[in-house]
């Protein structure tokens, strides 16, 4: 990284001078999940292309997604998505000038973490028991 760094402007203070705290963890997680979602967008595009290509290609894609590694990836993707979505709302509220004081920011940090987990588990519960999201592929 630094070998090619030739921007003379000073960098913002980095992790070395900060004590770990919850708002910092969420800030880092927002960036990390943004990147994870970027990788996930690749999956969405491949899935759309398979759908457009035809029934055989689509079935193959769904088999991959329904496999255990496939499901694990989808689970991680959904968790990242819900976290990023909820934390994104937090950013937008801050931009409107609200909730940026220390107590509120700390409290909403934990709320985002808890609700991201709840929504993810809710989605998968609905997927499995209401919709059978992977029909006829449970035997794989």
């Amino acid at each position, binding site marked *: 990284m630094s070998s*090619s760094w030739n921007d003379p402007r000073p960098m913002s203070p980095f992790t070395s001078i900060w004590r770990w705290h919850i708002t910092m963890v969420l800030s880092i997680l927002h960036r990390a999940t943004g990147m994870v979602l970027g990788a996930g967008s*690749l999956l969405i595009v491949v899935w759309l292309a398979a759908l*457009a290509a035809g029934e055989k290609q689509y079935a193959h894609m769904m088999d991959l997604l329904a496999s255990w590694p496939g499901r694990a990836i989808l689970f991680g993707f959904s968790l990242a998505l819900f976290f990023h979505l909820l934390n994104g709302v937090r950013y937008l509220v801050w931009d409107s000038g609200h909730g940026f004081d220390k107590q509120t920011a700390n409290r909403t940090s934990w709320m985002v973490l808890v609700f991201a987990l709840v929504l993810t588990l809710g989605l998968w519960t609905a997927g499995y028991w209401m919709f059978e999201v992977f029909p006829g592929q449970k035997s794989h």
Partner: protein
Amino acid sequence: MARYQTPRAKITGLGAAGHGAHHYLVQRVTALALLVLVPLVLLSFLAAFSSGYEAVRIWVGSLFGSITLLALMSAMFWHLRLGVQVALEDYFGGTARMLLLLVNTFGCFVLWLIAVLSILRVFFEG
């Protein structure tokens, strides 16, 4: 010489690119769009996935489904390009930065194109 410069003097004239406010705004406008579109598409997919190939094609090929998906893909890849750009600018400088920024831009654009073409193909094939 540099030793006697104040931090302010060090950065004066190096300048920002001048696109900061626009970048910031578009990141937020696309975030708002995603906030509506992502749950919408998630719920639709949940219902469509379970009914198999034909049902999914009918939803993606419908007027409502295709418009929602096209909007989602557009907002998503614009948002992604801006977001990744900021991260790259934070960690890379020089030639590496330029190359990675190009990869980011072209990558997002090509993925968006493939997504749009796939949706349109399903839409027009019915």
